[in-house]
Structures are given as structure tokens and as C-alpha cells.
């Protein structure tokens, strides 16, 4: 990525555009935007080599506010458009902003194929568990029984967990963070940026107009220590205000349990040590039922495998090496010809 590097050091300001930001006052999207604008200069990539791609939704307005190249496409199709961009110019740093509706409802298939192909793009899914832009219908991440405009008697769809979905289709990087946890989010963004391959980051985002407080049960300052486990590679899976709770696995039943660690509890050595390279950890962590278990945030899984664009480039190089630059006149003549 050497030639992508920005010659001058950029600041947050450099990533702001002259457009009025048109989210509702108080929306979690603002924090995410500010965070991204703050962290992005660190990556040292010139703005002209960055492209933000999005679908449709409140979250998908994101590109308008980033002073990079931006493409606000159609509902659900951002991963497909990004595929074309990345294939056409693999040098670009391509970022996607999507919502739980855009990315998992109408766009679930493109997201799935992007993840399994391991296209080298960074995806931020703003999960507010609601359709914001269309004014408050339930989304694929809304909880069962959710009462919304389209489900006055409560929804009958059981939700999908974005991280679990991503791991099921072999995503190489899966992380979770929270709109308002500035430090944590910055760290996760840095990890995502550094990952080579599809980096999928789910960000719990508060829609204060249509689903206010959706994540309070585990993001509220008062409870978050007890209700979140912040996972880190190589570190034991501990949580609680006093770091005195841990996650242990029964090796025969493969049942996960919350244990008290230390005084009166189990030994630290019994607590699982997070291995982000083993997807089994990601799966277990992603699916933990709440509130029986804490919500896992951080990098649930990260591993290296070839990227779609990388393999493609290698093939192209090999073809040129083997066949040389194509000769059009020869191509047109094809197999057998005759002259009159």
C-alpha cells in the first residue's frame, strides 16, 4: 500500500465535508462518524485513495460526510458495488457503511458472498436493530416480539446475529463495538483497517428516535462492566466490575458457563483464553444468550487467508507472464481463417 500513503499528515478536519450532517440530533451515527474521522488520519492513506461505499438507510448517508471518494448506491447492494471497485482498482482502500436492514435484510446475500470471498474491504454495520430511514419498522436484528409500526402485535421473526452469521460464512475478521465507546471503537477500527481481507465490524448504534435505548441493558455505564465481556486475543475471558467473572467451557457437553474466578470461585486457569484465530471461539462468543451471558465485544475472530482481489491479481499477473500482453489482431483472427 506504499503508493497509497498520504504525503502530508492529515487531521480529523481533513476528513470532514462541507455537507450538513442530516441525522437526528442525538443519533449514535454522530459518534461513529466522529470516531472514524478521528482515526482515519492515523492510517496514513491519502484521501483520494479511500472510497466509502454504502447502500440506503440513515447509516448509509455516511459517505456524504467523509471527505474521500464516496458512492451512495442502492439499498443492500454496497458489497456488490465495492466488489467492482476493488476488482477494478485493488490499490484503493475501500470502506463500507451499512445498516442492519441494508446489510442483513435486502443485502444479506451480497454481504455473505463478500465475506466468504474475503474481498479486501472494511465493513462497518451500524446495528440499531430498527429501520431508521423508513421511520421505524423492525429489522432482522430486532428482538422477537418487537412492537413496531409494521408489527403492532409484535414481530414473529427470530433475529439473526450479525457476528454469528459472518462466522458461519467463514468471515476472516469479525468484531463488535459500541457507538459511544470511543476508545474501544477506535481500537477496533484500527484492527479492522490493518486486517487484509474482509473486516466485518458490527457497531451497536443507538437510534434515539425509533429504538432509543436498545442497547442500554449492556451499554449503560451502571451495568456495562457486568454485562459486557471485552475479548482480547491471548487474554482470559474475564469480566465484571472486579474482573471476577469468567467464561468456562465444559469440554464434554461444549456448554459455556459463567463462573466466579478467584476467591471462592474457580481458578483463573479454568477460564477460557481467547484465541481470535480459532473461529470456534468466535462462534461461542457470538451466540451467547443475553442476559444469561455477557455480550462479547472486541475482535471475536481474526485470521488470515487469501483475499479475492489478491488471488485475482496473481492470476492476472500469471496470465500476462504466460501469454504476454494480448495482441488484438491475433485475437480477432481466432482459430482457423481463410483469405480471399
Amino acid at each position: 500500500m506504499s503508493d497509497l500513503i498520504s504525503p502530508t499528515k492529515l487531521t480529523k478536519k481533513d476528513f470532514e465535508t462541507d455537507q450538513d450532517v442530516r441525522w437526528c440530533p442525538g443519533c449514535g451515527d454522530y459518534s461513529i462518524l466522529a470516531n472514524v474521522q478521528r482515526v482515519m488520519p492515523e492510517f496514513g492513506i491519502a484521501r483520494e485513495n479511500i472510497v466509502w461505499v454504502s447502500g440506503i438507510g440513515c447509516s448509509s448517508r455516511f459517505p456524504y460526510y467523509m471527505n474521500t471518494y464516496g458512492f451512495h448506491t442502492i439499498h443492500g447492494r454496497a458489497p456488490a458495488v465495492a466488489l467492482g471497485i476493488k476488482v477494478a482498482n485493488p490499490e484503493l482502500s475501500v470502506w463500507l457503511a451499512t445498516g442492519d436492514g441494508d446489510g442483513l435484510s435486502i443485502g444479506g446475500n451480497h454481504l455473505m458472498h463478500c465475506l466468504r470471498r474475503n474481498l479486501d474491504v472494511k465493513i462497518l454495520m451500524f446495528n440499531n436493530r430498527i429501520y431508521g430511514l423508513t421511520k421505524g419498522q423492525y429489522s432482522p436484528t430486532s428482538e422477537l416480539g418487537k412492537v413496531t409500526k409494521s408489527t403492532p402485535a409484535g414481530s414473529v421473526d427470530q433475529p439473526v446475529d450479525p457476528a454469528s452469521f459472518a462466522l458461519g460464512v467463514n468471515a476472516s475478521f469479525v468484531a463488535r463495538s459500541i457507538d459511544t465507546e470511543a476508545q474501544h471503537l477506535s481500537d477496533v477500527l484500527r484492527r479492522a483497517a490493518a486486517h487484509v481481507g474482509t473486516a466485518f465490524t458490527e457497531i451497536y448504534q443507538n437510534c434515539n428516535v425509533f429504538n432509543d435505548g436498545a442497547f442500554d441493558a449492556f451499554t449503560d455505564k451502571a451495568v456495562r462492566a457486568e454485562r459486557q465481556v471485552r475479548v482480547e486475543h491471548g487474554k482470559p475471558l474475564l469480566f465484571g466490575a472486579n474482573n471476577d467473572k469468567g467464561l468456562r467451557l465444559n469440554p464434554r457437553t461444549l456448554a459455556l458457563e459463567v463462573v466466579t474466578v478467584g476467591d471462592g470461585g474457580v481458578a483463573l486457569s479454568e477460564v477460557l483464553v481467547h484465541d481470535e484465530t480459532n473461529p470456534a471461539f468466535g462462534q461461542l462468543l457470538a451466540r451467547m444468550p443475553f442476559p444469561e451471558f455477557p455480550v462479547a465485544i472486541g475482535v471475536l475472530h481474526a485470521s488470515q487467508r487469501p483475499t479475492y482481489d489478491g488471488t485475482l491479481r496473481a492470476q492476472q499477473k500469471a496470465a500476462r507472464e504466460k501469454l504476454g500482453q494480448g495482441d488484438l489482431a491475433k485475437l480477432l483472427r481466432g482459430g482457423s481463417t481463410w483469405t480471399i
Partner: protein
Amino acid sequence: MNEAPSSTSPHDFPREVIRGAVVRFAGDSGDGMQVTGDQFTAAAALARNDLATFPDFPAEIRAPTGTTYGVSGFQVHFSSQDVFTPGDAPDVLVAMNPAALKTNLRDLKKGGVLILNSGTFNATNLKKAGYDVNPLEDNSLEGYTVLSIDITKQTVAAVKDTGLSNKEAHRCKNFWTLGLMFWIYSRPLEPTLQWIESKFGKRSDLVAANIAALKAGHAFGETAEVFQHRYEVPPAPVEKGEYRNIGGNTATALGLVAAAQLAGLPLVLGAYPITPASDVLHELSKYKQFGVTTVQAEDEIAAVCLALGASYAGNLGVTSTSGPGMALKMEGIGLALSVELPLVIVDIQRGGPSTGLPTKTEQADLLQAVYGRNSEGPVCVIAASTPGNCFTMAIEAVRLALKYMTPVILLTDGYLANGAEPWKIPNVADLPKIDVKFRTDPAGFHPFLRDPATLARNWAIPGTPELMHRVGGLEKDYDSGHISYAPDNHERMVKARAAKIAGIASDIPPLTMEVGDDSGKLLVLGWGSTYGAIREAVQRCRDRGLSVSHAHLRYLNPFPQNLGEVLKRFERVLVPELNLGQLVKMLRSAYLVPAESLAKVQGQPFKITELEEKIRQVLES
């Protein structure tokens, strides 16, 4: 590059020089009819005949042997004169089994030659084909010249020394048949002998067997006393130059590669397999060394979107599909025209509606192409008229897409895709130049700045310093490119997009006559793959003194500037289409002319005679 060899084998058999013939090979899907047809065609081409071919195969991948729906056919028309279609009715029908006879006999010309493999006319096969009585034994074949030969037995005998299994030996039947046909039409064997060697090279037993079969069939013609004479078709008086045989999908693919090279852009094809469009994907996937990237997408929506993404990033984005896939692409095409990026969409039409008749041809996506998007979504629509013309029109699609920063839909169809014709290989230097300029100057830049002449917006691609900007499907301000919901601005933009497409009319050739005078009693106006049949039919009618001309539209949106005027110069206008009259609708609306429709929706091309008859009817009424 081969010099076309002239007939070499000396003999004293009477040779009748004929103008040309239409031959159809028909047999089981496993009988190798497509290979036989290809080789027979190659021989005609090397003899400098003009020709056209049309394969017709079943929807099933490999239908059970002996069934009528498993019959595979290949028709070739070759002649010392210009050839425009694969021919209405075959002069010669080769039927390798009862099912092939059953499904093809109705097409054979009265008095035509019927070559039958009597070795397959056993009880099982007759039953599968639905014959109660063996047609070789009742009088049902009266009126044809029937040559009933046990080709199976002849072949097995011919290859018995090559050590092939019985099953493999049977597979050589098609080369035996080809050998016989070569004898009848005085063709040299050498090119096919070479082909067999290169094809089966790794298995010397197969090489030996197929060569033995070919030669045995040829010798059979010479020695068996069933043939009165053999034929010779002299070379056609075609333009000088280097020729090859080309099918529509290959021509489309080559046109796209050529255009990308002419424009100096890498090409990205996004495609999802669908009959009969898949071969464009297959063909282009071989050309990595030309800067061609093909992506088999997860569906048609992804395919069009990734092509658009590629265009956004400064490559040439292309997507290819057929009817049902086309329907799925419309939202993406709408985005493309809204962000005004170049995009080429190839729709290789097939029979519909819905899944319809996937392996059959039709011209019924015209209105979908022109109107099938939400709101006012004008795009350029053009169509190819012959397999070779697919090359030219593919280049034209790219040229217009790049010049006008717009999606261009190129319509071809199953008939063009699968058919083939000799094609004069163009000189690369003679191909149109395609200029592409990316915007790099920040002074006064906004993304929707337009070229005053073409109304095309400037193309600033990611990676260009200081031109960072955002585009999207919301309405944009004419003067800044920012999102705008302002009423007057919206109308201005809607009209600008429409005017841009309408303006293409001044950049395309005026409509001229293919055949006939510039005015008269009747204009037969066609578009797309009906070209050959119309041209031939009109010529024949003119030969009989009728006042009729043929013009053919290759630009459907916008129409050529002089179209209205051309229509007015004729008393009547007849529009033959393989749909219920879609172009007619557009013509009537645009010019208020009482154009008449000749509609055929059978998954089959027009026969020349159908057109002749209709022309006569119209002129007599």
C-alpha cells in the same frame, strides 16, 4: 491463416455445379451433431462459400437417448451467392435416429434428400420416437429422396481394427456421416483429418478410428451405387480479405475486448450464468492478458452493481445476461443512469415470459430495455443484426457509453448467439477510435459538470488527488452535484438526462436502405436478428418486380434522426418482429405512422417464405 484449398481429389463421377444448399444434421444429443455441423461448415467456409448456421439443441443437458426432446440439430446454408440466413427448409436432412426423423421431417423441402441411419430404426427407438409403424416400411417417406444406410454397421466395420470398445466405435458414426457428406459436396478431407488429430491427439486409437470412419463414409459415396451425382458449390463472390467463421456471442465478446483496447481501459465483466448468455462470460474469462477481468457474481443484481462499481473506479464495466436476469438488473441500471457512469449491458434475448423457453430465440425485451425502469430513466438501446454485426455493435455500445457517460443496452438474441457466419476480420487500425479523458483538474470541478456538446458529465475516478466527491442515486443539483430536492432543479436534471440520450441521435449513422429504393410502396423495417431473413425476402420480392425496400434499425433509443422522414417516403411500413409488435409500438408513437406488425412468437426465427408471403399480401391488399 490458411489458403482455402480447392477441391483436389480427381475422379470421374459427374459433378453438378449448384448455387448452394441447406443441410440439416439431426440426431441424439450424444450423436455429435454439433461437431459434425461445425466441421461441415468449416469445409464450406474453406471452399469460400458464403454461409450461415443455426444449431438448435434441447433444453435438457443430456436427455435420455432416443427421445424426441433429446434431439439435437445443426443447420447450415452454404452458397456461391450471398447467404443471409441458415435457410428456411433443408434440401438435405441427415437423421441419425427415428426421433430425429420424427421431429425434423416436417421441415424438409418437398422432394428433398433424406439420409437415414437405418441401423437405429429398431423397435425401442421407434417406440421412444412415438412411431407405431416403422416409417421406412410404410409409405410415409414418399415424395423424398430417401437414402437409408445402416451407418452404425458401416461405422463399426470401418473402425473394427482400432481396438475401440463397442460404445466408442458407435460414437464414430458422425464422422462416417461427415465423410459421406464431404463426398457428396466434393469437399476435401484434409482439414477435418487435421482437426481430428489435434482434438483427439492424446488418444491415438480415437484418432485412428475417427479417421477411418471419415474415410469410410467418403469411400461409401464413391463406391456404393446409390448416388446419381455429386455436387459442387463454387466460391461466393465475397469481398477480398481474411475471413473466419464467427458466432454471435463470440463476436460480442471480441467486440467488447476490442473496444476496451481501443479505449485503453481494463474491462470488468460482471455476469451470472444464464442461457443463452453464458458464453459471453466463458469467452471473456479467457482474456486476462487483455486486461479483462470476469467476475461470476452471486446473482444478476450483484453482476450489474459490480460492473457499475468498476466503471466508477475508472474501468469499463460490462454485464451480460438474458431476459429474466435483465429484469433483475433494472434497479442497478437506474442507479447507473442516475450517477451517469458508463456501463454496457448485453441482453441476449430468449423466449419468455418468465423462465419461458430458455434455449429458444425471441426479440421481446425491447420495451423492457427502453422503458423497464422506475421513473424517467432513459438509456441508449442498440441491437445487432447478424452474428458478425455483434462485434461492431459491441464496440458501438462501448463507444457511446464512454462518450455519453451512460448505460447502453445492447440487444442480441439466442438466434444470433448460437448462429454463425463467415466474418471478414477487421483491420485493427480501421476500428473506431474511442477517446477517454478522466478529469484531473480541480479548478471549477464538480462531479456533474457537463460537456456542453454531449451533456456527458466529467469522469473523476478514485485515486485522483483533490477531486474527492460523493455520488449517489438521490437527485443532484445541476450546478454543484450535491443532493437536491428542489423542484425546478429536479425537472432540469430529468430533462438533461433525457436530452443527453436524445442527443446521441446526432452521433449515429442515418438509416439507409439495405435493399431497394429510398421510397416506394412498402418499407420492411426490421431490427436485430431478423436481418438476414428480411433482406433475402425483400430481395426475392424485388426480383419478382415488387416495390419493396428493406431498412434495418441498429439504434433503437434514440432512433436515427432521419427515421421519421424515411418512413414518410413509403406508402406502407411493415415491421416483422419476433414479438407481438414492440418496435411497431415505438414507431407509431414517435412518428404517428400506421406501421403494421408482422409478429411471430414461436421461439424460432422467421422463414424467408413467411416474409415473402406477407410482403406479397400487403402489396396486394
